[in-house]
Structures are given as structure tokens and as C-alpha cells.
């Protein structure tokens, strides 16, 4: 199981096996109902590429603050 904390919102437990073969952090983001382009994924408070295979058991999903 991967613990996914959406900062400022909720924490969910996601079973990577439900996300298909070799799930990525982008897949994990979609599993908590966000689009990869609107968040950053942090492991140990460091951003990780969203196309990387999930290799941590605790991740933070940080909604980005940006605009024009």
C-alpha cells in the first residue's frame, strides 16, 4: 500500500496493484482524482518525476499555486 497525502486535504491508502502494471506517480495522482499537470508529487519533501515508477510507500501530492 502507498499512503498518499493530498496536502491540505485528505490522506488515502492506494494499492499500487490496482493501478495496472508498473504504475507511475502520474497514475497515483489520477487515483486521488487530480491531474498530473495541476500537482507536484513529493517524496521526502523532494519533487519526483511523475513518469517514474512508484517506489515509495509515503508520498505527498501538492496542489500547485500558479496562474496569470
Amino acid at each position: 500500500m502507498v499512503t498518499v497525502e493530498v496536502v491540505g486535504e485528505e490522506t488515502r491508502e492506494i494499492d499500487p496493484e490496482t493501478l495496472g502494471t508498473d504504475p507511475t506517480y502520474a497514475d497515483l495522482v489520477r487515483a486521488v482524482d487530480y491531474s498530473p499537470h495541476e500537482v507536484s508529487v513529493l517524496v521526502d519533501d523532494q519533487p519526483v518525476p511523475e513518469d517514474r515508477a512508484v517506489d515509495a510507500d509515503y508520498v505527498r501530492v501538492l496542489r500547485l499555486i500558479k496562474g496569470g
Partner: protein
Amino acid sequence: MLELSRSVYDELIAHARERAPEECCGVLGGRQGADRSRADRHRRASNIASDPETAYELDPEEQLAHMQAIEDAGQDVVGFVHSHPAGPPRPSRTDERQATWTGYSYVIVVLDGAEPFVGSWRWTGERFQQETVAIQSAESPT
């Protein structure tokens, strides 16, 4: 409604003026409520947008550090600030497309008029809803 302490209000305008013509950005701390929030802390953030004169973007690591510092002080994250040095006095289309923090205040400091304007909008998840901005002196009751 968003209540700003006088010191935060002054700091927002000062930061926007210092960064112009680029957009400034930051994070507000205080007490967050569904209908009424109060901010008495402002943390300046770096604008890492590729074109900072027309866009803003917080660095995720810095954003998280600001938010954690606010929570470590026993406060809530109330919302976020950016400036429109040349207007408009409302959220832009880009602001609407990229908003993600449902229920939080998005404060915009506008500098295109004779006097600065500070407005605030709550992101409903679908649109920005303008809220009243009140400025309180240090002696005002909370």
C-alpha cells in the same frame, strides 16, 4: 469575507510594488473558515514562472515549506496572493484554469490604478467567487 491585519495589507502592497513589473506571490496564514477567514501572516514566495511579468508560480518545495511553517505556528493556511501589476482587477482566465485549492482565498493585488486595489476570491472548484476584504487594525477584536 477575508479579514486582513493592517500589517499584512501593507505588506501585500509593498511586496507587489517591489516586484513590479513582475508578479509577486505568497502564502497567507491565520484562521481559515468556510465563510470568514482572517490573515495576520504573509510569507513572501519566489515567482518561478517562465514569464513572471504575466504569470506566477510557486516552487513546490518552497510552497510546502511556507505552508508547514504556518501550520507549525499553530495557524491555518488561509489562501494565496499574487499581483496583477497591469491589471485586470479580477482573476484572469489563466487563474481560473490553474486554480486547485477549493475553498481557499486567492488574493490579487492590482497596481494599474492611481491607488492599489486588494481583492479576494474563493475558488469554488468551478469558479472564483469574490469575497469582501476587510482591513483591521491591531487593536480590532478578532
